[in-house]
């Protein structure tokens, strides 16, 4: 072939390039979407209608219009709802009432309604969320006891859109320690696990400061085990959960209130201690053929507020403070472990995974008996304290008068 022929061949090939854009599909390849047409879904809610046996998909989306300096105005936020035998059908039915091309890439949170979580196998839902290439694995999965639609249509308190509001609330979990929200990736990893359950956030509408105005808040968490709803954890119960299992990359801060002394009216004067896990070691030991798990926590403590008159600099006070905090931590964890281990027989702390990793031989032999073994496993918790910080002051006292 001479050079001219090659040249014309290349020109011919290049001339076909524009047609490639027509070959695109949503399941792969190239697909052209103009920015002006986009209707960006920010939050997705999935409900199940038990009477009609149908899924209800509700979304909050944003279709930004010209604004000075960009951003989103309240007028460009929309909600929509559609039903279908499957979630995918419902999502297609959404198009009946929405303008623009819906894209799910920026849907940061998925809310699962109470009816769906409590009465349905979650297989279809998680499969839909994981299979769809538009939904990100980093999306947060939340549950609610009522209808997800109600949460979707709720008015955000501080942000313009609900999506931003939810993201803001969720990102605060490490500052608080009483909430835990999983991403879709973790949910996909754990929901089929026959030995472990997973814990994810539970969102509710609460009464705000203004009368009649409802606000969104994370309240406790939902435990889902073997694709189904198992139990609810309160905010206080999430705290020891964070101590026993590393959930987020950043360990959350949590506050323990300890009564150090009483005032003249015999009322307790509390001291607030901020506690942060620095290191966590989990070991498996065997006693009479039964595995035992010991957890060693290495923690920092900071005194944030106190009503006591004692000198907080002394070792005795420090010891007293730490002893009390340790006692509370033990109490909290024992209560939680009793509830999930003895009462519900669900492993939410990844103990089964720990034994699997550390004692492969034992696990292979006893995996099938895990349901019987798990409630009997003793769990020992020991707490080491690194340092006690006192904050900016030691004690506020009246200065010497001259």
């Amino acid at each position, binding site marked *: 072939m001479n050079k001219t022929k090659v040249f014309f061949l290349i020109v011919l090939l290049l001339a076909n*390039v*524009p047609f*490639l*854009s027509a070959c695109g599909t949503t399941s792969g390849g*190239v*697909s*052209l*979407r*103009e*920015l*002006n047409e*986009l209707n*960006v879904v*920010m939050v997705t809610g999935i409900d199940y209608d038990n009477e009609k046996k149908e899924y209800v998909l509700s979304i909050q989306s*944003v*279709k*930004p*219009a*010209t*604004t000075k300096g*960009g*951003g*989103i105005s309240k007028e*460009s936020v929309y909600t929509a709802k559609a039903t279908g035998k499957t979630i995918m059908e419902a999502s297609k039915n959404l198009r009946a009432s929405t303008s623009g091309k819906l*894209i799910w*890439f*920026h849907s*940061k949170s998925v809310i699962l309604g109470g009816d769906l979580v409590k009465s349905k196998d979650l297989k279809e839902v998680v499969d839909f969320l994981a299979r769809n290439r*538009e939904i*990100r694995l980093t999306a947060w999965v939340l549950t609610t006891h009522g209808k997800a639609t109600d949460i979707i249509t709720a008015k955000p308190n501080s942000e313009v859109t609900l*999506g931003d509001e939810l993201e803001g609330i969720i990102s605060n979990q490490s500052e608080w320690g009483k909430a835990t929200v999983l991403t879709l990736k973790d949910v996909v990893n754990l929901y089929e696990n026959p030995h472990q359950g997973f814990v994810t956030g539970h969102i509710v509408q609460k009464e705000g400061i203004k009368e009649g105005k409802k606000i969104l808040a994370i309240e406790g968490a939902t435990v889902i085990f073997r694709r189904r709803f198992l139990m609810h954890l309160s905010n206080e119960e999430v705290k020891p959960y964070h101590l026993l299992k590393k959930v987020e990359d950043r360990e959350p801060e949590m506050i323990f209130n300890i009564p150090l002394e009483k005032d003249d009216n015999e009322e307790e004067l509390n001291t607030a201690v901020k506690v942060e896990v620095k290191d966590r070691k989990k070991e498996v030991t065997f006693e009479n053929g039964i595995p035992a798990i010991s957890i060693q926590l290495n923690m920092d403590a900071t005194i944030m507020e106190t009503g006591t008159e004692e000198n907080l600099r002394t070792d005795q006070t420090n010891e007293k403070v730490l002893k009390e905090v340790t006692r509370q931590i033990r109490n909290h964890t024992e209560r939680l472990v009793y509830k999930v281990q003895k009462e519900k027989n669900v492993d939410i702390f990844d103990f089964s995974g720990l034994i699997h990793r550390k004692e492969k031989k034992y696990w292979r032999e006893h995996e099938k008996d895990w349901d019987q073994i798990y409630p009997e496993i003793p769990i020992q918790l020991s707490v080491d304290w690194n340092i006690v910080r006192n904050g900016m002051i030691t004690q506020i006292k009246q200065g010497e008068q001259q």
Partner: protein
Amino acid sequence: MTEFIKPKKVKRSTEKIEEKMQEKIDEKDWSKWGIDSSSEVNKKRFKNIFDPNTMFEAREVLFPKGVKGVVCYFDDLVISAEVNEHVIEPLVEHGPEAMFKDLGERVITSKKIRQFEKLKDAVDFLTSGGTIVHVDGMNYFIGVVAPGFPARSVTEPQAEPLVRGPREGFTEKLQDNSALVRKRLRTPDLKSEEMKIGRRSKTTVLIMYVDGLVADDVLKTVKDRMEKIDIDVLIESAQLEELIEDDMFSPFPQIVHTERPDKVVAGLAEGRVALLIDGTPFALIVPSVFYDFMQASEDYYERFYFSSAIRILRMITFLIALLVPSIYVAVTTFHQELIPSPLLYTIIAARAGVPFPVVIEAFLMEISFEILREAGVRLPRPVGSAVSIVGALVVGQAAVDAGIVSQPMVIVVALTGIASFTIPAFNMSMTTRLLRFPIMFIAATMGLFGIAVSLMLIGLHVCALRSFGVPYMSPAAPLHLKSWKSEIVLFPFFFRRTRPEYIQKHDLQKNATKPRQEEGKK
């Protein structure tokens, strides 16, 4: 100096002269004409060759005993006063007797004397600013060099300004340019060979190189390619560049041109060949690789931290200039998931009223930007700046306000334009400007995949490209890590000990300075 032989005295009648003229004029091709012993005949022959030409002067000089002489020159190409002083006056003063003995040595006081045995050579000499002397009885011409071309004085280079460094730039005069180079490189190894290119223009091209440093095959290639050139008129270095470069269809420039003598000297010291062309202030440096186009001479005159940072920045701006509009088009039409949510909302909001698809918008803006730039360059300088201000501020702002283009697109186009200005070599910057359009088109049809494909094609092309046998992407591909120290980033001087090893391999040691021990520290 040439030995002059005293010719026999010949006397001829006017008739005889006429006869001789006639017989020679019958021969149409003047290049075959010979040299006659009579100066009058020769004068007529020159007149015949050049007339009508008001600038051609053939002055007769009369000596005693009826001996005649003729002095020919182009009035516009020589300084008449010099011809008078150094040629005619001495001739008349000393008379023909002394003249034949040592015409060149004593009589003519000018410095440069040549002897021509052929009429054709004498004609060439005349047209390049020489003066021809002939006295009855000689069977050769004497050429005196007293050129007086109009020339610009040495000024600061316009195209390559810098903050620190020599401010001398080449001019249109070859001798001056050669001097500017030679005064910076006073080694006897600095050789220069002359070559005439252009059938009619006979432009002098000076091939300069440092003997012992230059790679012989490169030098040979340069000479071979130049010898094969057969063009009519060579006006600018660009023509020569196109005629000798390896791949004239490549969008990438393969030969560095510069107005700066210091850059030429640096190139020569690395073993490159410099080509100085008469009539243009631009010299060519071969071989040149991609990274040479990303360097400014000032890099070497600033502190190495700054120079390294600037060089890395230039690599980034090269990519920005080449790719940013395409990436913007691809990401906004195909891959909205790549844009962080808040930014996406901002872009959508900014684009809400725009009636065109992103790619049309991008093409509109890019083309209007090129129009503005071209208008700014072509117009007289005072008007040019006004056009760019009107274009950039007024039209841009009005287009955004009217909702024809969006603000992010203005930012993208402006960023791209400014990024392309940071590339030191103007021809490389033009390459990015031009390549941007096909990449944008492919990005608009195939998204990021298309950009990846285009980059791969460009990568394949530049890796296959060679400049006089040197791979174009050296020292990156093939890898010469030692050369990175002075070619891609800039290490301190102590570490830059070698010359780039892809230019030549036989003499690499450039600098042997050892780091100085701190005083008092042993």
